[in-house]
């Protein structure tokens, strides 16, 4: 960057940015801190909380009470599975829309997005009856299908905007060299599209991981992901801040860590075609 910055200004920006960053992060930090306290200490005033001893008590309770790893694994399978299926369906569609646009391409894209506007609560009973008849209740495959359909529009959209940024000339050049459609897709486009696909994958894993309506409604035990796990810790009788914090930390930690490690990849594709 060529812009010269005075140290004073840089210091000022640093202080401001850190303050805002910490403020936004504070609720998460606080949850993590409370998860290491006893129930009695967790409701004390903030300054008192910081001086009380740390303990793993709540984590022991949570571990005794629920099968965290089962829920964790279900979350992984469901979010990753639904995203992968969505990619398989969406990549060809987005490719075709981006490189062979027809007069109706835009409308099609908009229509796809509009399918996301149906309020899930209104269609629960129909879907529940359908799942019951197909024997899909409490099955991971059922949730994979539902979440895939839910996120498909976003996946197509993201990939489409990303593919559009790939210059058409490269394809023409490949075609001149006698590449078939298949070659084009596998050898030319895919490598160029990998960053976009990666970021689409990440965003959708996050969205699927955090989806809390269908995952809660359509599972009972075998396929229940972390959203169900959390529902066992919200507002029981008695004090619960520490246990709730521990369960919350366990539920969000995996995705938070994944998000942090992959934030560069995530950000690269998060533009939805907004950047030219």
């Amino acid at each position, binding site marked *: 960057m060529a812009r010269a910055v005075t140290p004073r200004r840089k210091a000022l920006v640093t202080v401001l940015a850190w303050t805002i960053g910490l403020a936004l992060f504070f609720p998460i930090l606080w949850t993590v801190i409370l998860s290491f306290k006893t129930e009695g200490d967790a409701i004390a005033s903030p300054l008192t909380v910081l001086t009380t001893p740390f303990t793993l008590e709540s984590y022991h309770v949570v571990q005794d009470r629920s099968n965290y790893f089962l829920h964790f694994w279900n979350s992984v399978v469901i979010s990753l599975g639904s995203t992968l299926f969505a990619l398989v369906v969406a990549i060809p*569609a987005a490719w075709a829309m981006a490189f062979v646009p027809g007069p109706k391409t835009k409308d099609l894209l908009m229509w796809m997005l509009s399918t996301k506007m149906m309020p899930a609560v209104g269609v629960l009973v*129909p879907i529940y009856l359908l799942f019951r008849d197909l024997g899909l209740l409490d099955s991971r495959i059922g949730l994979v299908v539902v979440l895939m359909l839910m996120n*498909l529009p976003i996946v197509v959209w993201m990939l489409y905007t990303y593919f559009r940024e790939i210059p058409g000339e490269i394809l023409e050049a490949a075609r001149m060299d006698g590449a078939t459609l298949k070659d084009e897709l596998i050898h030319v486009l895919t490598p160029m599209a990998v960053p976009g696909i990666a970021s689409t994958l990440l965003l959708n894993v*996050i969205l699927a991981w955090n989806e809390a309506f269908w995952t809660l409604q359509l599972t009972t035990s075998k396929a229940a992901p972390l959203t169900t796990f959390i529902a066992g810790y919200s507002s029981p009788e008695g004090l619960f801040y520490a246990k709730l914090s521990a369960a919350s930390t366990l539920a*969000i930690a995996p995705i938070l860590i994944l*998000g942090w490690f992959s934030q560069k990849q995530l950000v690269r594709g998060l533009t939805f075609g*907004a950047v030219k």
Partner: protein
Amino acid sequence: MSTQASRTAARLMISPAVILLLGWMIVPLAMTLWFSMQRYNLLMPGMGGFTGFDNYSYFLTDPAFFDAIKNTLVLVLGVLAITTVGGLLLALLLDQPFWGQGIVRVLVIAPFFVMPTVSALVWKNMFMNPVNGVFAHLAKSIGLQPYDFLAQSPLASIVLIVAWQWLPFATLILLTALQSLDSEQLEAAEMDGAGPISRFFYVMLPHLARAITVVILIQTIFLLSTFAEILVTTNGGPGTASTTLTYLVYVQSLLQFDVGSGAAGGIVAVVLANIVAIFLMRMIGKNLEN
């Protein structure tokens, strides 16, 4: 550049996605339409039969209906306003050079990874609770009466919670867009004697227009279906102060188990959402052209 052959191929490639989404749209929609004209309450299996538009008239004349529309608009617009303006300011700030950029960025995006249920539970209990929450403790420590967020201003509190979750998303998109702005363009404007404010309005903002529309579009789609945050924090109350359209449909279909009314409400919500969608699509469609 597209030949007849490649068009056919393109159609083939698009069709799986279209067929799946068509099925996902039509099957529930058809079932919902059917149920919306039935007298069907899960708890009363004996009753049944066609009722025409009774369910619709009950839903549309529900005393909470207009409140619900108003609250939905306030929620969506409120969150959009906070996240786009806040996101823009935050993006401008983070675009400046400062120490620890990477860490601050990680801190800022973190809320986006938190499950809505968890974030609602955390805000409600650990922060907004008027006795044990952090805010209450802070108020007491400086000698103020704790403010009861969820009772005194329920909708504003929910807007705050939801905005906290979506601010990172807006910030990230706007920041990426900002970073793609040619620095030469800015320097040229500076040479021409443009101050920081006019640089912002004449160079940056036009460049960000597309990113802002994308933020608005994507967020609106998700915000219209905001549900977990309301269920966990206020249950739509006090009174109907934080009942949105989605929540009203929930009350009909999963609290009263009145599938017929719930379905009618679902259809009404779909129609209203699509009206919003058409506006949005127009807006973004125009922006995507160029």
